[in-house]
Structure formats: C-alpha cells, structure tokens
C-alpha cells in the first residue's frame, strides 16, 4: 500500500516542489490531481484536507495515524527528513542557512510577483471565458480572503498598473540576483543539488519563454546552464511526465534548445 498521497496540479510552481522532492528521494506516492483551473482546490472534498484551499497538500499514513501536511517548501523539508534516499539539504550549517534563505526569498518575495504576472497573462484569460455566474459562485467559495481578491482581479484583468510594475521590478531584480548567485556556486546556495534548486527551478524553468528579455543564453548564461542541468535530472523527466496539460511538453522543447 502507498503511504503517501500528494494532492497537486501541474508539475509547476508550488505543486512541482513536493512532486520533485518525492521523485528525487524515490518515495512512491499516490497522485491526486487537482485541476486548479476548475477550482478543484476549493471543493469540499479538498477543503477537508486543506481548509486553506491551496495546493499542494500531502498525507502520510504511518503507525501513529495519518499526517496531513501543507505549504510546499515545508512539505519538501518533511519529505527530505522523513524518508531515506539522497539528502536534499547540504551538510554544512552555513550552506543550509543559504538554502533556506533562497527558498524564503522565492516563496515570499519573488514568487508572489511571478504569480501575479502568471495569473494576469495566463490563469485569468484561461478562466475568464466561462459563465460569469458560475465564476462568481466559484469565487465565493474561496476560503482565503486574499485569494478571493486575487482571483477576482485575475478574472477581471484588474491588477493595477502600480502592482504589476512592482511585480515586474521584482522579477527583473530577482533574475539578476539569481544569475549572480549561480555564477558563484553550481547550485542555488551550495555546491550540491538541494531543495533550493527544486524550489527555484519550479518557478523559473519557464523564464526563457515567458521573460525572454530578462532570461536568455546571452543575458543569463549561468541560469541557463543551471536550468539545463536540473532539467536533465531523471526525477525532473519523470515528474514532468505526470503533467496533464501541454505545459510541461511545451517547456521540454524550450529546455532542449536552451544551451
């Protein structure tokens, strides 16, 4: 019997983090696909697992009962500590600090800006075409007030010029700093592949396509080399094969061409 069940969307952003960590560790898991664009994450069956209504979430059945885990980065840390397999945290304490620092930088400073841009150019337009009444009811079911606002803005195309400008500023600055970091070390925060690479890869693999003016072979050679190195990992290939939309397939083509 599989002890671990992962509730996830595409192998992307937050969902991709625990998927990839489980794959790297070689932990078998039952996959429960949550279609974000159908608002599966706000349905009662899922809210029973994660009342916040965000993905991913993971359950782990053990001798002491079923453990429920949320928050993608914290889930990865759990996966790394709870299961055998390659250690995805460096051994040196200062390297570990650096890995955590980069994950927080992505999760709480840069990631929300990627999300705002992604939601305004991709998620909003995908969902917008549906019946307005159905959409209004779907938004009313969202448990987190901040997310209700974000979905409404995405659907109505209402992100303000100043918040979009701030997001673009952060994305440009974040990419520039990541490029510098990867000029110092082979991986993010340390000399070995770690949770920070998984975290940041999941939010940056699309950059050559989504931000070609900021991330390219010429402008960010270190990021490109690193993306390719991570992309070539077997665990990434197997994780991307779990995607149900053409997202991963499209990006595979980009990866094949980047270095």
């Amino acid at each position, binding site marked *: 019997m599989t002890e671990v069940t992962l509730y996830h969307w595409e192998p992307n952003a937050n969902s991709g983090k625990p998927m990839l960590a489980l794959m790297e560790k070689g932990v078998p898991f039952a996959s429960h696909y949550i279609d974000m664009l159908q608002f599966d994450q706000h349905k009662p069956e899922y809210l029973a697992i994660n009342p916040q209504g965000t993905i991913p979430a993971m359950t782990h059945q053990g001798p002491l009962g079923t453990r429920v885990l949320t928050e993608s980065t914290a889930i990865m*840390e759990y996966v790394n500590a709870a299961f055998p397999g390659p250690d995805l945290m460096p051994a040196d304490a200062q390297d570990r600090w650096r890995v955590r620092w980069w994950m927080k930088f992505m999760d709480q*400073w840069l990631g929300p800006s990627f999300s705002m841009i992604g939601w305004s150019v991709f998620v909003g337009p995908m969902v917008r075409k549906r019946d307005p009444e159905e959409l209004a009811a779907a938004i009313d079911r969202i448990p987190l007030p901040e997310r209700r606002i974000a979905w409404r803005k995405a659907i109505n195309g209402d992100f303000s010029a100043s918040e979009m400008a*701030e997001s673009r500023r952060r994305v440009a600055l974040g990419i520039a700093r990541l490029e510098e970091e990867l000029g110092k070390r082979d991986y993010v925060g340390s000399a070995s592949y770690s949770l920070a690479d998984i975290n940041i890869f999941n939010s940056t693999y699309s950059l050559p396509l989504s931000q070609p003016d900021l991330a390219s072979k010429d402008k960010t050679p270190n990021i490109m080399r690193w993306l390719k190195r991570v992309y070539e990992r077997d665990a990434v290939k197997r994780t991307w094969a779990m995607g149900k939309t053409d997202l991963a397939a499209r990006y595979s083509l980009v990866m094949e061409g980047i270095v």
Partner: protein
Amino acid sequence: MGAVLYHGEPNGASLTVLAALAESGLDIPCVRIDLLAGARHNLTGIAEPIALDLGIEGEGPVLVIGGEAMTESVFLAQYFDELAGGCGLQPADPYAHWDMLMWCRQITERLSPAAALLGNLASSQQGIAAIPADDFAALTASVVSDDLRARWQALHDDAIDAAQVADSHAKVDQAAARCEGKLADGREWLMGEFSIADLVTYGWLAGMEPIRPQAFVAAPLTCAWLARVAARPCVVSALALANCAEPLRSWAPGPEINRWG
C-alpha cells in the same frame, strides 16, 4: 573568518536571534547597532550582501561570517542550533519539525509585519520623522531594497492608511488567539517542547501587550506563557543586552504586509 552578530535592541527579530544564540552556548561576539540610525545599511567588510540587501524581515539582525551577511531570524536560530550540534531548539521528529516551521512562518508572515507596523507607529515614528532632512536622505539612500526604503519613507511621511492599521490589529488578535488555542491542552510551550517557535512568537508578540491590550483580554494562557518565556534564561540574558529601559517598546521598520495571500 571571525563571526559577528550585529543586532538592534532585544525585541522582534533581534530578540529571537540573541536568545537563540544564548541557548546555543556558542561564543559569537555581539555588536549592538542603532537600527533607527540606519546602521544596518552601513556595515563594513561584507563581500556577499544579498541577504542583507534583499532580506524580507526588514531591520533584523545580521550575522556576518567570512564576509557573508546572513539574515532572517528563524534561519539564524536554526543555524545556531545546528552549529551547536543541536541545542534542542528544533524538534527531531520530522512532523513536529514541519509543525514548528509552519508555526514560525505564520508568525513571520502574518504577525511580524503587523506588529512591526503598530510598534513603529507607537514608538519610533516620531523619532524617524524628526531625523533632519539631509540625514534622512542619506539614510534612505543607503537602503538597497526599494520596498524596505518605501516602508521607512511611509513612516517618515506618516503615509500609513487606516485599513493597514485595522488589518494589523486583526492580525495581532489572531496571533494571540492562535497561541491561546495551541496552549489550551495545558502544554507549557507552543510546540510541547521549548523551541524556536516560542522565541519567534515571543519576539513579535510580547511588545504588543501595551499596544494592543484587547488581544490579550481573553488569552490568559497566552499571558502566562509570555511570562514563562520571559523567565527562560536565554531570554533573560538577551533582554539584559538592552541599552534602554523598555526594549520591548523598541521597533524599527519591519517586513512588508503580504501582497498575495
């Protein structure tokens, strides 16, 4: 290679890190700096400044080792614990550890911006507004992060809107209520065993007692827990490093209010 911990008055992020250092027993020299004079942005000998320049926590402590600036109070506390070979500040069980990280993230993401805003309005805004124009211009020019600089400027210009204040009151109330819920089973410390969660929560919540007393009216367990944390030797020795009579009333611009949810 010598390490130095630069810190502000023992409150908020500085209190967490000073107490964690005391708990670890590590021998790292501490240097108090005047956060409200912008001293954190004028440290010398830093070859790797990114964590200082783009830290999320705002005016928190900075540990400098081998020319690298290290920031973020929870991670510095973890660092001390791990460097000391495990001083008991982090649960060993992976699920208990996950629980602690989740708790700390709630506190740093939701409570700390709220507490910093209210704390600054109560005790540092006047001082910031009174900095002579040239000095303030020099201070803000030394802040690398545009969003941290904007928080300094907003305090200086008294450009804080009422909705932010109301939201911050609500977040402090929620944090106290969350502590009360956690302590309801009679446990001594938030995670059962004493941990970084106690230090981080104390660091941001203790100073809210005089500023937002309403949050504590229906939270007797939380008040008793605050008193227990205050009596822990590591917290006592961190507070003893204060250079003012009431360190819990000492604040400097903190983290931003979450912009996505």
